[in-house]
């Protein structure tokens, strides 16, 4: 009741986006403003045309009021994304080292700061989409390795984890239970065997 049922299983996409908005990003202010004291941060004094690091949610407010431009992260351009795609293709057994929130961050950029990107947003979008699909195929292939003990998924982003979480958690939970039942039965069999042996000895 205090927490909706669908939120008990996983984080919602909105919540993941919320977490991304807490992260720091570099902006180029077009506006000067005195420093600002907040609950979870202090924003230093803004000076026009001086680069500065601020939380993303704050950058988005300034951006909406056309008071800054946001500097895209160093991987959000045509060249880097192509490279990531290449390494995704050549290294079939692992995920390339994209930041853990690459999907969320690029979505936020396309929606709010497309004009700050150095390359054409449509092209970047399709590259991101390709990367996403390729990685999803890998995730699905990796899931065939699922067992009751563990699975290693380095460099997977939170959004990608959330996508597979409900399914994976369910399957692994079932496997764990099955394994337990089997182990218990084997133990019982052994005990019975020993009992029989004892009978023979007598």
């Amino acid at each position: 009741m205090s927490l909706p049922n669908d939120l008990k299983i996983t984080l919602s996409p909105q919540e993941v986006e919320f977490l991304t908005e807490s992260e720091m990003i570099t902006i180029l202010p077009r506006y000067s403003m005195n420093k600002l004291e907040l609950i979870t941060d202090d924003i230093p004094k803004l000076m026009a045309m001086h680069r500065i690091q601020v939380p993303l949610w704050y950058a988005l407010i300034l951006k909406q009021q056309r008071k800054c431009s946001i500097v895209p992260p160093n991987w959000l351009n045509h060249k880097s994304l192509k490279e990531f795609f290449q390494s995704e293709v050549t290294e079939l057994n692992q995920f390339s080292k994209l930041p853990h929130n690459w999907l969320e961050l690029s979505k936020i950029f396309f929606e709010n700061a497309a004009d700050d990107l150095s390359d054409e947003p449509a092209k970047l979008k399709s590259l991101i989409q390709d990367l996403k699909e390729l990685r999803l195929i890998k995730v699905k292939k990796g899931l065939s390795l699922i067992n009751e003990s563990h699975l290693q998924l380095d460099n997977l982003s939170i959004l990608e984890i959330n996508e597979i979480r409900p399914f994976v958690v369910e399957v692994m939970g079932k496997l764990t239970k099955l394994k337990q039942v089997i182990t218990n039965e084997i133990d019982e069999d052994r005990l019975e065997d020993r009992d029989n042996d004892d009978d023979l000895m007598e």
Partner: protein
Amino acid sequence: MATNFDDILADFDNQVNPNNRLTLTKLKRQDLQLLQTVWINERMAPELLTYEHELIERILSRLRDQVEFIELNSIDIQNTDKDIKLKLVVIESELGRVNFLLRSYLRTRLSKIDRLTVFIRTSDEFIQRLSEEETIYMENHFKSLVQLYNNLFLNTMPEQLQSLDDESGGISMIEQPDWNKPVFIRVVNDIKESIIVGDEEVELEKEGIYLLRYSAVKNFVHNRDVVLI
């Protein structure tokens, strides 16, 4: 005591570091990080984790100051600060964000307390993990619930079937946390010893992301060597 944590730290900073503004900012950022971590941990862990008294107190006390600031400045129309409108937008947005995190954290805990009441009440360790308010809530809620069950149907049942914590017959009525629930973790600190999951040995590499059962990493979650994601 906890309410003055900021002041104590600020005093301490004044002695060792004259440039204490920067350190207070750092502390604020750490608190946000920590709040986000404990929020997600609480959301993903099958058990009820320890209530973060000091952290919540620190944030609440700053939150109260901020609300006061908003009230003072929105009444004062003659304010000389030309940016006050934009500043208030920013301050209110942040307030909303912090409120959201706090609420979601507390609500997640309440939903677990509701579900695991009988189990929590049997264990001193778990009772310790509740805040004062949560204990009061749990006791009152449980009392009302038992009364309701009694009035509705329990008092018409045979006496031996009336209890809510029957453990006889090999099946316990008490709902326990699902200790073997699979969880996603990220390793944030070096962990030297490898862990045993079922009959496999697993080495946890720093910054690695794993999916495994909660019981295997429970202690690392408690001391924050791994975080749930």
